[in-house]
């Protein structure tokens, strides 16, 4: 029988060799980290997993609101006073997010969700 338990990419699959496959492997691994390998259903993991999901959604909303505010600044539809107030709000929200991330032991890179072919949420 043929030996089929070898990694085919090391053979004739490489049509264009960039000379540094390790760099590609690192990026592809990083690209896949938002996709959970398996759902962790143990009681301790559930709490952290839920916190991660909630904080990801909060971060998404924070970024959307901040971008909307930036567009309104660019459009000139906000007064200096309104810009000041928005800026204070976003800074406070950012500080609060940092505190929550520390409580649940989460890093910035972990606050993301893979949307498959659409890429990552954040």
């Amino acid at each position, binding site marked *: *029988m043929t030996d*089929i338990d070898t990694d085919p990419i090391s053979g004739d*699959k490489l*049509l264009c060799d960039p000379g540094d496959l390790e760099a*590609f492997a690192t990026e592809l691994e990083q*690209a896949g980290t938002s996709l959970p390998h398996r759902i962790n259903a143990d009681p301790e993991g559930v709490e952290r997993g839920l916190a991660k999901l909630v904080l990801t959604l909060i971060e998404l909303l924070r970024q959307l609101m901040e971008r909307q*505010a930036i567009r309104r600044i660019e459009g000139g539809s906000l007064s200096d006073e309104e810009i000041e107030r928005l*800026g*204070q709000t976003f*800074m406070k929200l950012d500080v609060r997010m940092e505190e929550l991330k520390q409580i649940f032991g989460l890093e910035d890179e972990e606050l993301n969700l893979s949307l498959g072919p659409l890429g990552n949420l954040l």
Partner: protein
Amino acid sequence: MIYLYAITDRPEVAIPALPGLEDAPLISLAYRDVAAVASRGAGSGVSTALSSPEAVNVWRHEAIVEALMPDRTVLPVRFGTVLPDEAALRSMLKDRYSSFVANLKRVCGRVELSVQVLWDSDSRPLTAGRAKNINDQCSAIGGRAYMLARLSEEQLERAWRRRAETLVVEIRRPLEHMAADSVCQVLVTPRLLLKAAYLVAREQMKNFRKEINNLSLAYPELRFLCTGPWPAYNFVTDRKADQSGD
């Protein structure tokens, strides 16, 4: 339990003498002019392989799919696909027959080539949520300073993305001409400029490879990785599911 590797045409052609997962022999089950290539599991054996999808099992699955490719058209099945028994497999073949035939027609004589491009992401500006230094600097100054700093950051980010999109259009243009279909993702990570798959006629492979080499020379600041031929994993769609809106 039945572990499924691929759906193929030409059910009359003998399947290769390769061991399946857990060394189970391969079987072919035909329905009209299509066939399913699978292996029978004792249940626990295949389950073990699936609950621990180690590289050796994934490559074995891949090698079986590829061994089928030289003498028939192949629809690769995702690693880990199992059915309870042969009756379920027969029923699946019958229910999705028209979808399988349409997909087989689409990928017939074609292979999937993968293209990935890295670029230098050092020029990327700080991104939203990561610009902690802005927050630190501005907390003493005030909200307006924070928003203006974020505005400047956002403009740099947009310019960076525009540059990436322009490059991707330039890279994809010559490759698209040689492909029947393609899928692509831009900036999956800040450094991974392009991650794409192309459905290419076998006889076009040499030209495709040549074009990638031309692109490598034209864009020395980018790094190109092209691999293949692969089974057309990215170009098989379940039309039955599509039509029903599932």
